[in-house]
Every structure is written in C-alpha cells, then in structure tokens.
C-alpha cells in the first residue's frame, strides 16, 4: 500500500529523483490557460499548439485550464514547476506577476509568458503575436463588404493589444472608405458568451452590419449567423459557428513557436528573449476568405501578401489621432514603444477610450 501511495504521490519531485537519470532527462512542457480549452478561441488555439508539440517532438505535456488571474495563478504555475515541468507557458497577460514570482524560486525551470513585458529573471521569456496585422486585412474587407458603412467591435479590456487591433481595423477600413465608422462595446471580460452575445445584438441594433471581436467565445459569431450579418472569427477559425457569415478569421497559430521553444529545451539551447510573432513566420494566419465578393477576396489576399512579406506595415503615416492631432507623418512608421503602450484611438473610431 505504501508503495502504491508513493507512486501516486509521484506527481511531485519525488518521482523524478527516484526514477533516475533517464526519466529526468525527458522534457516536459506545461501550459496554463485562462479559459476553457473548449472556448474555440484563445485558449483552444494555445492547446492546439500544445498538441502539436506533443505530436512533433513526442514530449510529455500537461495543462491546466480556466485558471483565474491572481493568487490562484501563482499556485497553478508553482504546481507545474514542482511537478517536473522543464518549460511552462503561461498564456494570459494577467499571469505576468505570478510567472515572474515563481520563476525566481525555480531557476532551473524555463518560463514563457504570452503578451507580457516583464522578464525579471534569466529564465523568463515573453512572446506575443502581431494580431493587428490581421485586423488591417479585416478592416479592408469590412469596408468593401459593408452596406451601412458601420462595423461593430466587441472589445475585452482597454489594454494596448486590444486598442492596437481597433486602430488597425479602422485604418484598413479607411484605406477603402475614408468615412467608415467603427462602434466599440467593451465587455470587460475575455470569455463571457452571454455578455459577448448581448454586445453583438446591441451593435447590430445600432446599425453595424459587420461584427468583429477581441473576446474568446463564439457567441458573437452565432449571433451574426442568426441575424444574417457578416462577422470575423477571432483567434481560431469559427466557420463552423457562422458558415454563411464568417468572412475570415485571424488564427493564432502558436504551433511553430511552441515547437521551436520546446525543442530548444530538448537541445539545451533555450535562451531568454522577447518576440513579437507576425504573419511573416506563419504565427498569425488568415482563415480562408469566404462569404464575400470575389474582388474583395482578391484585395484581401493582396494586402495579406504584402504584410506577410513585410512590404507593408499597417501603422504607416499619415495617421491622425482621434483628437485631431497628427501622430505619424506621411510614410513614417510607428515606433515599437508607442505600439506596445498604445492608449489612444486614431481618427474614425466612434467611441471614447476608457481611461
């Protein structure tokens, strides 16, 4: 019985020590998710990345889903650090402080924090995606497909990542129709299907005939399908939830990055870094262009190719801020610091940024 108990308790470091060198040399990659893996959005995509790691490298993985940001996150991360994980991916902004706190206690474990900016010890890297590149393509499509000239944007929290997406979307739309309008509803949650659906209904009632979202559930897509308005999927391809209305979706494909980083652990070449992954390396992918005019699809594919080859950058002047002041001169490109801390709207957004 004692033996049985001991082997069950083997989650802890005990097992690693007792089963010897061969096991300890194996790599284990662990993932902490903010939502359920069944959200078919943000967390779902991270989990697809985990599965790709498992398949490609044959390493052991583990995950914990729906981990609240705050004191509970620290425990989840520490549990992984103690259970023999060599690399831990913490996949929400709110895990920034706990990730850094736990990392200090476990210098031999590597930590990868998505969308954050703090790297307080050598074993913490940060990574994020240039999702705004896809937003620009969406904006262009929206302006070409919309009849009312108004799109609705379901936003989560007014943090730079979300504001960047909103601005990029309106810039893309204005490149087609300078008078295009964008209405924004803040739901103050990453995953709340009820609130997201309410927001979608409100935006449609206010005249938006295209919906886009920076939240994680498929609720808005389902509303769009019901109401017959067009919509963009978020984080993953949501075509199954809006087969007659999804125009395209920004797909966060974390697989290439996760495989690269876990492989680096295996090879012993892992180094701290801060990366911003974009379309060029296949980390931000557009879902097939559907439910739109052929000429729209053609224009979308063209601009996508230009962004992918780094020939075009969405935040290129001339760009005016919402308050009328000039932000970027003609041909001037935004510096990375301003993009990372973006806290203002550009002209054309029909909303006050919550401050």
């Amino acid at each position, binding site marked *: 019985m004692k033996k049985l*108990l001991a082997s069950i308790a083997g*989650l*802890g470091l005990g097992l690693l020590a007792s089963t010897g060198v061969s096991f300890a040399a194996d790599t284990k990659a662990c993932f902490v998710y903010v939502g359920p893996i069944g959200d078919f959005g943000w967390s779902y995509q991270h989990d697809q990345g985990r599965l790709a790691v498992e398949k490609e490298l044959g390493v052991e993985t583990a995950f*914990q*889903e729906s981990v609240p*940001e*705050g004191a509970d996150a620290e425990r989840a991360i520490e549990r992984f650090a103690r259970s023999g994980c060599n690399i831990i991916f913490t996949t929400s902004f709110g895990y920034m402080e706990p990730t850094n706190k736990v990392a200090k206690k476990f210098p031999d474990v590597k930590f990868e924090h998505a969308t954050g900016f703090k790297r307080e010890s050598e074993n913490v890297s940060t990574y994020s995606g240039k999702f705004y590149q896809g937003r620009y393509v969406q904006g262009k499509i929206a302006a070409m497909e919309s009849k009312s000239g108004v799109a609705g944007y379901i936003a989560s*929290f007014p943090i730079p990542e979300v504001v960047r997406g909103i601005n990029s979307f309106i810039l893309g739309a204005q490149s087609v129709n300078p008078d295009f309008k964008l209405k924004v509803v803040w739901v103050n949650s990453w995953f709340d299907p009820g609130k997201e659906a309410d927001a979608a209904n409100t935006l449609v009632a206010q005249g938006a005939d295209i919906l886009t979202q920076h939240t994680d559930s498929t609720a808005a897509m389902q509303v769009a399908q019901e109401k017959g308005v067009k919509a963009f999927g978020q984080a993953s391809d949501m075509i199954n939830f809006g087969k007659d209305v999804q125009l395209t979706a920004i797909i966060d494909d974390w697989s290439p990055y996760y495989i690269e980083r876990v492989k680096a652990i295996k090879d012993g070449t892992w180094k701290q870094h801060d990366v911003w992954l974009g379309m060029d390396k296949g980390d931000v992918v557009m879902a097939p262009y559907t439910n739109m005019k052929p000429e729209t699809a053609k224009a979308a594919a063209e601009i996508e190719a230009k962004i992918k080859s780094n020939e075009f950058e969405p935040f290129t002047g001339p760009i005016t801020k919402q308050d009328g002041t000039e932000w970027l001169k003609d041909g001037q490109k935004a510096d990375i610091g301003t993009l990372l801390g973006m*806290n203002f709207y550009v002209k054309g957004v029909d909303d006050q940024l*919550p401050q």
Partner: protein
Amino acid sequence: MQPDFSIRLEKRATTSTFFAYFSPFIALIMMLIAGGMLFFLMGHNPFKALYVYFIEPLTDTWTLHELAIKSSPLILIATGLCLCFRSGNWNIGAEGQFIMGGIAGASIPVFFPEFTSFWILPLMLISGVLGGMVWALIPAILKNRFGTNEILTSLMLVYIAGHFLDWIVRGPFRNPEGFNFPGSISFSQWQVLPEVFSSGRMHYGMIFAIIGVIVVWFLLSKTMKGFEILVIGQAPRAGQFAGFSPQKTTLFVFLVSGAFAGLAGIAEVSGAIQQLRPSISPGYGFTAIIVAFLGRLNPLGIFAAGIVLALSYLGGEAVQISLNVTDKIANVFQGLLLFFVLGCDTLIHHRIRFGHSWGFIKQGVQHGTG
C-alpha cells in the same frame, strides 16, 4: 382509480442531536462515495482519484501553505458573516466589502510609494478594515433608516465595488510604468504582508483568520452582546422586550462583518497578490456564504468548512493535471457536498412520507398521519 404517488415531507417530533451534529460528516462521506463513482464512470481508479483529490494536497508542505492561503479569506469572511446571519441580517455583499477593503488598504502604497517603514503595514491593514466597514455601513443604514431589503442593497453594492476597482486600476491607481496595462504598482517589501514560515508563502492572513474565529466564538458564547445577537435573530420581539435594539444589532453585525471582509481583502491584496489588479477575488465573498452555512454558523465549524472548501479547489486542480479531467470537477464536488449537506439536514428534521392513499381523496384533504 389511480394510486397516489405523492411524496411528502413531515416534520419529525424529535430530532436526534447526534445526527444534527454529525450531518456534515455524513454528507462528506456521501460526497466521497458519489465522487468516487463519478471517477469510476469516467474510467479512472476511484481510490487513486480520491487520494489525489483529498489526501495528496495535505501531504506536501507547499500545498498546506496554499491551502491556508485559499482558506484564510473564506474563513475570515464567513466568520464575520455568521454574526449577520445569526441575527437575521442577510449580508450578501461580503464580496464588495472584500474588494473595498483591498482598495482602501492598497491606496496607501499607491499614493505613498516612498513611505517605507514598519508602520506602513499596520496602516494598510487598518485602512482595509475601514474600507470594508464603510461599504457594509451603507446597507445597514439603509435598512435601519428606510427599511430597505439588505439582501438587495448589499448585493448591488458588490457590483459597484467591482466596477470601481476596475476603473481605479485603469485610472488613478494605474502603474505609470505599466504600458497602460491595468494594475497598480507592485508592492515593495514593507508593503507586503509577510510569510509566517520560511517554508512557503502562507502569510499572516491565516493568523488573522484564527484570531477572528476565536474572537467571534468568544463573543457569541460568552458575552451579553452575543446573546443579544442570538435573541434578535431568533425572536426579535422578545429581544425588544428585553431592551435589545434590532437597529443597533444590525449596525453592529454589519460593521463587524464588513471589517472582517475588509481585512480579508487587504490581506489577500497585500499578502497573496501583492498589487491591485482588475480582479482580486475569485468570488471569495460569495463562497464564504456557503462556508458559513456548511459550518453551521458556528465559528469553529466555519474554520473546518473553510478548510474543506479550500481543499475542494486545490484537489480539483490536482486531479485536473494528474488525471486530465475537466476543471469543472471542483464545481461538481462542491455541488455534491452542498447537496448532501442540505439533504442530510432536511432528513434530520423531516421524514419522508410516501402517499398511500387512493384517488378518491379529494385534492387538499390530508389523509391520516400514518
């Protein structure tokens, strides 16, 4: 003629003291059996699963620390709430009082980041207590003065507090060097509630919870004030004849429970999170209501109930990782526990009568007592 299959609950003439006392334990055992069956149906070894769920978290030093961190706010809040509930004041707003305590306490390091001395922590704690008290004072005054329903007012104040926190961490309390991300500065050494032992991150919040339990136990069982609270709760008219004021009692219990929730709030912010964030509580104020009733509105029972509920969270996380089951498992176990506790309580005070009458008895006519 159709047989009558009605099922009725009848109040028992006498209730067994033994079972009244042990019903939570019976419920716990039934939850383990039902949970084990659930794991078995999901294709897991039920003994292994239950071991990982309920025993393993108690075998590691670090998980014991985590258990204390998770249970201390629940115990502290529920202990305050038991005074409210005992006196018939339904304070549902502890979550809001918790949040306001966190905000009030955190305001000191946010506005005076340079102020580093031993005295800052006591000041933060006092400020947190006051924050919780002020928030609890509102429904108490509204009830005393205008006769408003405190269930509604205290509950609605939770949402106001939540949105206030959300606004404040994006506005006045925002870390100026945080790239506009919501959240205050991280607290420095003097502003963090210290750890009790060097072996883990359990902070002094647990000590506060233990002191709170003892104080409230003493108050309820040994003092006149405690007697007053019980009388007002069970027989308000009798209490008034005895010269007790329901208004004063309402004010007192709301202030105390607000103080406890506020203290829990600042202890969580200062000890566990160490900064103010858009959300600082995964629903402690609401879960504490369950803890208070699971603990029989008795401080010592609440202490045990708080540990059990915290264990259900921790164990839920453990099985999630080691057996790859869904995160909803913790909710299922908490639901099972509550179901069995309520079921046991009902059956201790009532007996089930199956209808054995035949259809000729008209509706509404009672047929015998069997």
